[in-house]
């Protein structure tokens, strides 16, 4: 039987969106793993850094482009028109599109790092619960502020960001595939980076800091500086992830209006890291997959049920049940299998074969002694 190429193409197209979501959640969860898994920092304000990157990177790019192209008028009222003009310009000049994309990523990284430094500074010296409380409160404030302050993002109206990668893809003829390719590249880079950090001496230092703060301080490690640097780096990555989210969906809706909520960008990455197993990048990979499997199965299942006439949920929004299920699942995992699906492996400083040789040599020596005596 010959393979029908057009159906294969259709399958690929259907899989693009889940794949994009997979890459985005993988990046954010890897930063959570770096902070919480390796270093034990409870960053409950992850949404702050993702949103800082997305809001500031996206809105700044839009404002700069509107200024450069001499678009006259209210940038909120005419945004549909302005954005179509900006995207048209980016489609016709690929170099400019690349520049805009890089500009957005740079702004996202800088803003993520800046927000990370500012919001952790007061509590980084204190116990981890104060840091968790402060970061969570800062995240809630940022969302509240960007929803309520109209001149920032247009309030509940939201703002549309330029989508340079999509425009570049339009030139090739495959916009969605290009976005997916960029996301895969970015998530692969972040994965390789965190894998290298995890295996390096720095990774072992972070675990030491997590497991015994006093001991690591006694060995001459500057705990506060290490914690601050980890937070800076992972917040910069989270800020870039916010910009990548805009490449996937160029709509900035602040706070509870849009997708930038504490539930999505703080809680879900923690769920992913704990399902898969903390301090373990392969675990994060598996956790992201499992979470998105549950998420998609739930969405497809409920929409199938509702479309075929079995509305078992009545007037209740089915996503509420998903939220409750995810929360309950996390508690059950914490109770039954706190190490996650893939448990953290003990750190081996030498290669396995070398360690075996040493162990055998020790055993041989002791046997020789016994034989002599």
């Amino acid at each position, binding site marked *: 039987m010959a393979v029908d190429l057009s159906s294969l193409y259709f399958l690929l197209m259907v899989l693009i969106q889940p794949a994009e979501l997979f890459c985005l959640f993988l990046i954010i969860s890897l930063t959570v793993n770096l902070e919480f898994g390796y270093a034990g920092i409870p960053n409950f304000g992850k949404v702050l850094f993702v949103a800082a990157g997305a809001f500031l990177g996206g809105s700044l790019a839009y404002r700069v482009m509107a200024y450069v192209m001499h678009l006259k008028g209210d940038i909120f009222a005419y945004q549909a028109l302005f954005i179509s003009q900006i995207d048209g310009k980016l489609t016709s000049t690929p170099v400019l599109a690349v520049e805009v994309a890089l500009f957005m990523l740079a702004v996202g990284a800088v803003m993520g790092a800046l927000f990370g430094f500012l919001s952790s500074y007061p509590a980084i010296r204190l116990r981890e619960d104060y840091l968790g409380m402060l970061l969570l409160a800062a995240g809630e404030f940022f969302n*509240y502020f960007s929803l309520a302050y109209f001149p920032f993002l247009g309030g509940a109206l939201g703002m549309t960001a330029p989508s340079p990668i999509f425009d570049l893809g339009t030139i090739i003829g495959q916009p969605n595939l290009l976005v997916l390719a960029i996301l895969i590249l970015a998530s692969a880079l972040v994965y390789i980076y965190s894998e290298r950090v995890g295996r390096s001496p720095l990774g072992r230092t972070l675990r030491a800091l997590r497991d015994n703060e006093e001991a690591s301080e006694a060995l001459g490690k500057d705990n506060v500086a290490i914690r601050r640097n980890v937070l800076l780096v992972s917040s910069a990555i989270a800020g870039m992830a916010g910009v990548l989210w805009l490449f996937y969906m160029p709509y900035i809706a602040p706070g509870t209006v849009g997708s930038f909520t504490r539930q999505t960008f703080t809680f879900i990455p923690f769920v992913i890291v704990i399902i898969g197993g903390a301090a373990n990048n392969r675990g994060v990979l598996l956790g992201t997959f499992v979470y998105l499997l549950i998420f998609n199965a739930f969405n497809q299942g409920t929409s199938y049920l509702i479309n075929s006439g079995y509305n078992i949920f009545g007037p209740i929004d089915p996503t509420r049940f998903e939220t409750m299920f995810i929360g309950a699942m996390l508690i059950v995992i914490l109770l039954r299998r706190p190490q996650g699906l893939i448990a953290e492996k003990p750190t081996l400083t030498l290669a396995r074969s070398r360690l075996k040789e040493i162990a055998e040599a020790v055993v041989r020596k002791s046997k020789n002694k016994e034989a002599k005596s």
Partner: protein
Amino acid sequence: MLDPSISNAIVYGCLYAMMCVGLTLTYMTTKVPNFAHSDFVVVAIFSSASAFIFGNFSSPYLTVPVAFFVGGATAVIMYLLVLKPLTKRGANIVVLMIATLAVDTIMTGFIGAVFFDYISKVYAKFLGNKGYYLFDLNQLPDFHVFGVNGILIVAPAALVVMTVALSYLLYRTRFGVAMRAAIENPNLARILGINVERVYVVSWFVAGALAGLGGGLYSIQSPSPPATSSYIIVDIFAGAVLGGLTSLYGGIIGGFIVGFSETYVIRVLTSFVNATYGYAAGSQITTFQKGIPLAIMIITLLVIPKGLTSVDWRRFMRRFR
């Protein structure tokens, strides 16, 4: 009578004080900042509002006891089902915090499903006939005593009664002595034959009930949309951190300062900016409202990380004499 900006600030101060003392109590017993504390408040708000609407009561004050007991019951269920088993397994503080975040998520879904989807949609016609919804009980006319709004009397009275009752429980009863011992040193208390688990359950009930009482009165004072939980959590944490998380009176003082300054400072700033730059400029100031508790929290952590109760006020006064 009193300037409305001051009277509002006093009411908010009392309500946040009740919520903060609950958070402080749970922190003292379980040693974990409870991120689901604001959900106790919100569950209590909507339970009492539903009881008021469906029970055909004449005043929303009559259903505030419902809020009190629902808040307490929710807290006890959370402690027994989630935190107690986790503590038994020896979970560290970060894991406990994540568990409370999970409870927060579950309760957000539950509140949305029951109150905002089920009740609001199934009973839409009934609610429409009544003319108000679960989240705008503050639209109802309040009762007046000598020209003073009822809430301005009830909220401070509730705070005072609760403080006195809590002090009596802690310092004048045998159970209170056991409670303080269990908070101070659980292992020693266990050796002396105190049932520490029962003490913890009671203190979680008290904490949730105080949050619920604050919530029941909050719904009379202010509109309470679905996102209330995520807004008031900033105030609750700021108040508890300002109070120092180690003393109940610290929680009360911290909560009162946060609630009062948030409302009062914003009103003063708004009227000042309105007078200087015109009306539209002043209306933007309210968007910074939740910045005030955050600023209080940051300053507290930078200057007195152990809170107001850690400051030696006598030495402080002597320095300036």
